[in-house]
């Protein structure tokens, strides 16, 4: 290389360092991992139920993560990180303290339960009745809710019309706002047929997408609760009638309430079947409709599930014909994810037979539609997850402890650098100064890289800090290899200038060989190991690459340039190690 290219390398390096300096000076800071900023960190291992068949584990894991994410959102954590780690799920909830531990533990660990339940009444937020029905999750007495079940051709919804995820294939909105013939008589507007206000899954004909608040509001206001309910501290029983909330829609409104019936269906042959997620074989988003341009979710149920589905949808279709909503709620984790209504083509008394149904989704644009279909399909498949979450680790870290760890890590790193600097200066004099500059550049660039990586979601952990500190040694070694070779070559009688060139060549080769091994270790650890090992491996790998670059761009250029000056002459190079050489040498030496 020519002198010019050395100068260019140095300039490039300095510009990079200066750029990072400005970047950091402007206040950019690394994204700290949970063990450094405090919060809750847990690893859950999904355990497949025995019933799991040829299911793609990767798929199941992905869906499990979605479920946990949805649940964690309800905790109101600023930046939850729920990610896959090997075959486990890593849940990181920064900022949560000891007081949130119990709730977090409960909410994450529970098993997802999906049921199909008939909608008895739909109460959007903002209506007069909203505050008069029990809170979400309350179990109510079915006879309270359905005072006069006369309208129902088939038995009380409590036992019979369990569920009907029924298709509303084409975009014609059958339902018109109606009033339930229950005790609410005339007060509570029933679900706008097709519309379920939760954006996630409007499983109903697109056109009818009329947002819920106050459809056919009747003037009568009642001050006393319409009926009583009790929130039990147990999972919602399959056969219970309950008040449930719609899934959060993040629009700032209270979620709408649904009064839903039992998920247990009695088949014509008297057998009882719980229409839950275990009967779902598959649910996929696809293009359907007359023109083939509307997104829908194709639902595929197993044999018994299909039979039960037929019974439920038959009853719901009858209700629809009577002017009721005839909606079927898809309930996941005690929240109504969607409540599609029956399409006119579904006949009263027949229902949807064959265990296959389509659910048309709403959405203003094709993209929205697609997103909703995907979400709903995910919900349905999630409900079918044959998986139990077993906690593998659960850890709370106090913010003060995290801060102390950061301080210790930084301090240890600095102390290490200083020790190395003193040693190198003593041993290599001016070359030592070059080594120290390399280490400083390494420190700054590494810090900058960690910060930049933080922007894309990487969080620095304690193990990562350890990885960087280990890399200090490796970076120092590159310089040492280089300098020792210069010494060797000068000893062989070369001029300093030639010695530097030859030394760099062989030192770089050796360095590359050694670093390849370290890099291989880092890469293999990153991809194969689990737990904190990965953060460590990533930092080690990045630092190794950085080390090679610094040796190439910086150390080599600087040493080459000072190779002809008084700073680096045969004498200064040879004086190196003089204190040690004396006495141990008889013949050789310089």
């Amino acid at each position, binding site marked *: 290389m020519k002198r010019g290219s050395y100068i260019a390398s140095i300039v490039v390096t300095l510009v990079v360092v200066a750029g990072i300096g400005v970047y950091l000076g402007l206040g950019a800071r690394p994204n700290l991992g949970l063990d450094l900023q405090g919060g809750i960190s847990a690893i859950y291992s999904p355990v497949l139920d025995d019933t799991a068949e040829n299911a793609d584990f990767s798929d199941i894991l992905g869906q499990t993560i979605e479920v946990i994410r949805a649940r964690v959102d309800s905790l109101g954590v600023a930046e939850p990180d729920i990610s896959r780690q090997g075959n486990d799920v890593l849940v990181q909830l920064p900022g949560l303290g000891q007081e949130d531990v119990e709730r977090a533990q409960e909410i994450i660990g529970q098993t997802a339960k999906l049921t199909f339940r008939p909608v008895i009444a739909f109460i959007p937020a903002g209506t007069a009745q909203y505050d008069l029905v029990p809170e979400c999750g309350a179990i109510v007495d079915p006879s309270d809710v359905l005072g006069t079940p006369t309208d129902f051709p088939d038995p009380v919804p409590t036992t019979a019309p369990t569920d009907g995820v029924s298709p509303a294939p084409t975009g014609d909105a059958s339902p018109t706002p109606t009033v339930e013939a229950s005790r609410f008589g005339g007060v509570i507007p029933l679900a706008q047929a097709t519309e379920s206000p939760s954006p996630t899954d409007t499983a109903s004909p697109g056109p009818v997408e009329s947002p819920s608040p106050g459809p056919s509001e009747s003037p009568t206001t009642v001050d006393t609760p319409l009926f009583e309910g009790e929130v039990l501290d147990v999972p919602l029983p399959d056969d219970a009638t309950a008040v449930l909330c719609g899934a959060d829609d993040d629009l700032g409104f209270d979620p709408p309430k649904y009064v839903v019936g039992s998920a247990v269906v009695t088949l014509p042959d008297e057998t009882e079947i719980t229409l839950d997620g275990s009967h779902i074989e598959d649910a996929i988003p696809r293009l359907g409709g007359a023109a083939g341009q509307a997104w829908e979710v194709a639902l595929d149920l197993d044999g018994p599930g299909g039979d039960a589905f037929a019974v439920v949808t038959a009853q719901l279709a009858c209700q629809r014909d009577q002017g009721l909503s005839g909606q079927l709620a898809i309930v996941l984790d005690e929240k109504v994810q969607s409540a599609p209504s029956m399409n006119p083509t579904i006949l009263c008394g027949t229902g949807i037979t064959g265990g296959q149904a389509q659910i048309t989704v709403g959405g203003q644009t094709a993209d929205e539609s697609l997103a909703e279909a995907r979400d709903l399909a995910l919900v349905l498949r999630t409900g079918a997850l044959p998986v139990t979450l077993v906690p593998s680790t659960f850890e*709370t870290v106090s913010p003060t402890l995290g801060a102390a760890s950061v301080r210790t890590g930084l301090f240890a790193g600095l102390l*290490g650098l200083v020790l190395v600097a003193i040693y190198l200066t003593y041993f290599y004099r001016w070359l030592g100064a070059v080594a120290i500059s390399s280490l400083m550049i390494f420190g700054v660039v590494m810090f900058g890289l960690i910060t930049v990586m933080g922007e894309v979601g990487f969080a620095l952990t304690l193990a990562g800090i350890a990885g960087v500190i280990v890399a200090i040694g490796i970076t120092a*070694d590159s310089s040492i290899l280089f300098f020792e070779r210069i010494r060797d070559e000068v000893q062989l009688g070369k001029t300093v200038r030639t010695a530097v060139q030859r030394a760099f060549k062989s030192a770089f080769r050796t360095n590359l060989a050694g670093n390849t091994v370290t890099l291989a270790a880092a890469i293999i650890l990153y991809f194969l190991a*689990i737990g904190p090992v990965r953060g460590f491996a990533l930092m080690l790998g990045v630092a190794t690459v950085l080390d090679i670059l610094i040796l190439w761009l910086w150390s080599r250029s600087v040493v080459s340039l000072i190779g002809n000056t008084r700073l680096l002459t045969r004498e200064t190079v040879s004086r190196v190690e003089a204190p040690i050489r004396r006495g141990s040498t008889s013949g050789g030496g310089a």
Partner: protein
Amino acid sequence: MKFSVTKVDFVGRWRTWAKISGAAMLVSIVALVALGLNLSIDFVGGSSFVIDEVTTGASEQDLREAAEGAGATDVTAQLTGGEDGNPGAIIRMGALEPGSDELVTVRDAIVEAAGPVELTENFVGPTWGEQVSRKAIEALVVFLIVVVIYITIRLELKMAGVAVVALVHDLVITVGIYALLRFTVSPATIIALLTILGYSLYDTVVVFDRVKEVSEQVGEPGRRTMAQVTNVAMNDVLWRSINTSLTSLAPVGALLFLGGRLLGASTLEDLALALFVGMALGTYSSLFVAGPGFALWKMTEPEQIKLAERAVDLGEEEAVTGALPDAAVVEARAPITTEYVRGRGRKSRRRR
């Protein structure tokens, strides 16, 4: 040709190193079998609470009884350095599932007994440590295969074989030290062990790289056999090895020293401890296990045996064991390879 500053007979005195290493490995294995490892809760599963300050003045006994009274099993309580004059505490017990009522009961009992300012809670399922270890071993196997292939291509097969032997040597002794000194083995220790592999191999590769370079001069005076070549190469890199290990150990030592004073930062401390031990061993094994091992293995090759015989004919018996004669002695000797003629030796001697 240049003459090494140092003249340690790494190869010739292999019996000495073998005795040291063999004894260390034997002690390690005995310690491992007899004492076993002190596994952290991460391997056996369990729950623990870390209290930053015990404000009630409760003793270890009090804390243990409080936890046991609330239904916890296998409780150990330990007071640690705390803040503001109050001690901290770590209370460990059998696994209490997160979210369970049992956990809540125990937590409440401990809070009441210790009056902590801050309570940190940990839970590890019974199979987690096993999973981490299994994954680590899988990674280790893959890594070893990759490295053997790499060293074989880059250097040579025998070097790869010896490098792996040196690695096993480092691992066995590190684990032995853990067993003997009753250090706690945590998943962080496993990380560190894996890094030691990388570091040990890195060091070995650097040494072997030099051996390979010098081996071009095999046959020249003072480099008659691979045994001598290896000795020359290792003396060449001796200072580099010492400097590197010192500069590598300095930051890790700082981490160990500082990390150990920080309550709860056990990850840092565990990592640093294993790294410290492993890095020191890695340097040792590159010089005293890998180098001599390779030379001895190499000397069994017919070509080397022939070279050694020729050296003996020339009256250079030391070439068989690899001992390095004084520079003056070597200079007086005739070159016996053609390489020497175009070699650097004459030139450098002139200059000198």
